[in-house]
């Protein structure tokens, strides 16, 4: 039977696309109208020329990178161990990893402040370094569902139990197995999780604001209250950055070892050799 034109599906796709793209385009157009009567990039120049912009962006970038490294160091060995030795604990670990989606960041940060405030046994909030550490840990927690899922998916693709046994039968210690065999084979999954972590924590507001850190999220809110065109330019730039992250994630997630980033450089699969 010949299929008709999928009218309903196409309409839904157009509506959904319009819902997303029209406000984005409107924001972009508004960001170009800073100079009255002409299109210009003045709003972008103003943003990029601001020291506060660069300072807050680099602060958030460093905090995000630290969160990525810490998150990977916690998540990868945990998932590896649970999959290898404690598969019955997997539902529990999965549930725990999803908690940050249920518990609002504001609850998390008030918990931190109570636990690590000036009256506590470990008064982290009394120093800059301590508060920064709390912020990073908070980012790790917020990105846990994404990092967990990305790495867990990565590990489900490779047979970690057999690879571990293969490495051990060749004399490798557990640490060497993780470093030489497991980590490289889930690298693309870790990178995917890392880009998600980066895009979440870069513009994060609640934790940074309530911990009073000079981060990019509070700067975005602040400038939104004070200025008209710059926030629009910032919104467009943040979108572009997030999309770049998604693109990188996609490239790394589908990249195979021994191939360049462009698909035309891939090897052809070998044919069976007559024995």
């Amino acid at each position: 039977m010949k299929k008709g034109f999928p009218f309903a599906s196409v309409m839904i796709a157009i509506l959904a696309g319009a819902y997303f793209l029209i406000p984005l385009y409107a924001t972009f157009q508004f960001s170009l109208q800073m100079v009255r009567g002409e299109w210009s990039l003045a709003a972008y120049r103003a943003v990029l020329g601001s020291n506060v912009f660069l300072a807050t962006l680099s602060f958030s970038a460093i905090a995000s990178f630290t969160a990525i490294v810490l998150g990977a160091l916690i998540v990868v060995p945990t998932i590896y161990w649970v999959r290898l030795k404690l598969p019955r604990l997997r539902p529990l670990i999965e549930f725990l990893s999803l908690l940050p989606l249920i518990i609002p960041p504001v609850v998390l940060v008030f918990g931190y402040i109570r636990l690590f405030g000036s009256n506590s046994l470990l008064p982290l909030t009394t120093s800059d370094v301590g508060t920064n550490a709390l912020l990073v840990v908070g980012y790790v927690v917020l990105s846990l569902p994404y990092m967990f899922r990305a790495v867990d998916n990565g590990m489900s693709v490779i047979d970690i139990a057999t690879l571990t046994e293969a490495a051990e039968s060749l004399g490798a210690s557990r640490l060497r197995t993780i470093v030489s065999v497991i980590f490289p084979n889930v690298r693309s999954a870790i990178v995917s999780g890392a880009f998600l972590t980066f895009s979440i924590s870069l513009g994060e507001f609640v934790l940074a604001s309530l911990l009073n850190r000079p981060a990019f999220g509070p700067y975005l809110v602040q400038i939104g209250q004070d200025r008209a065109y710059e926030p629009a330019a910032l919104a467009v730039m943040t979108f572009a950055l997030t999309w770049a992250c998604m693109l990188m994630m996609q490239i790394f997630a589908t990249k195979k070892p021994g191939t360049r980033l462009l698909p035309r450089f891939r090897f052809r699969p070998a044919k069976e050799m007559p024995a």
Partner: protein
Amino acid sequence: MNFLRIAAIGKSFGQNHVVKDFSLDIDKGEFISFLGPSGCGKTTVLRMVAGFEAPSAGRILLDGADITGVPSRQRNIGMVFQAYALFPNMTVFDNVAFGLKVAGVAKSDIATRVDEMLRLINLEHLADRYPYQMSGGQQQRVALARALAPRPRVLLLDEPLSALDAKIRVSLREEIRAIQRKLGITTIFVTHDQEEALSISDRIVVMNGGRAEQIGAPSDIYNRPATRFVASFVGTLNMIEAEVLDPNGTVRIGETVVSLAEPIVHRGPGEKVSLALRPEAGAVDRAEHGDTSLPGTVVSTQFLGSVIRVKLDVAGHRMSFDRFNAPDSRLPNIGDPARLHFAARDLLVVQD
């Protein structure tokens, strides 16, 4: 003295006893196959030898030393897995070099040894390939080279041919045997394929329900199966029941009295005994074949090209025999009377 001794090992997972009182002595350079159906415990025994599972009972001794509690990474036992288990992030060269790097071998020596191993499996031209760029047969050969590179004391092969297609299976099993003979490495090969086990082993261990049912040379296992299970699992077998007239070897099948070549152990006169006859040991309506004959009725015939399979009802038992096709031969009709001819010495007494 035996090189590898598996002494009364057992393995239980909770209440489930997967391996029971399994013992085996293996000489240096021997090629042993563990043959049995799924769940018979053959892979579990192999994994205990590799060190991936700890035995619940018994000991494993390698070259006189007790290795029961030694971690797998310190055993120097090579293993080839059903699913290849090549490291996907490494090239063929790096996969084969892995064990040598772990052992701290000098870089130049690693290159020499890897080249030697790749020449052994005829894949020296694919050293820069990644596993996903190779066929299953090539990957399994690389897995073999990787396992052999660090000069292991024992080589374990866990159903290495199961994931390959029929043609590659045959050629690769011959290659594995040739390499094993060349290197003289003590090898245990796990398979559920009787043809594989019969064709490449020095000895076969037929396993069932966690126990070794019979250990012997392929011809012994096939020609003189010790139990009904071995008889039915290894090759096709026709089973027939007989009544013991004299434990020295006289039985009655239907109305015919037959003298066996061997005495019947553990059975007295009047008791039933199971006898087995290989399909190739019997002939239908060819009086010149053998010294004994039994009357029967044709139940079915199948024309299979070069072979005609005739099923007979003999004394209430269905028995199947093949005969070569000849252009002028006539297919027997269903219901025709027929005589089954065989040599009495080919009748096997099977223990239940």
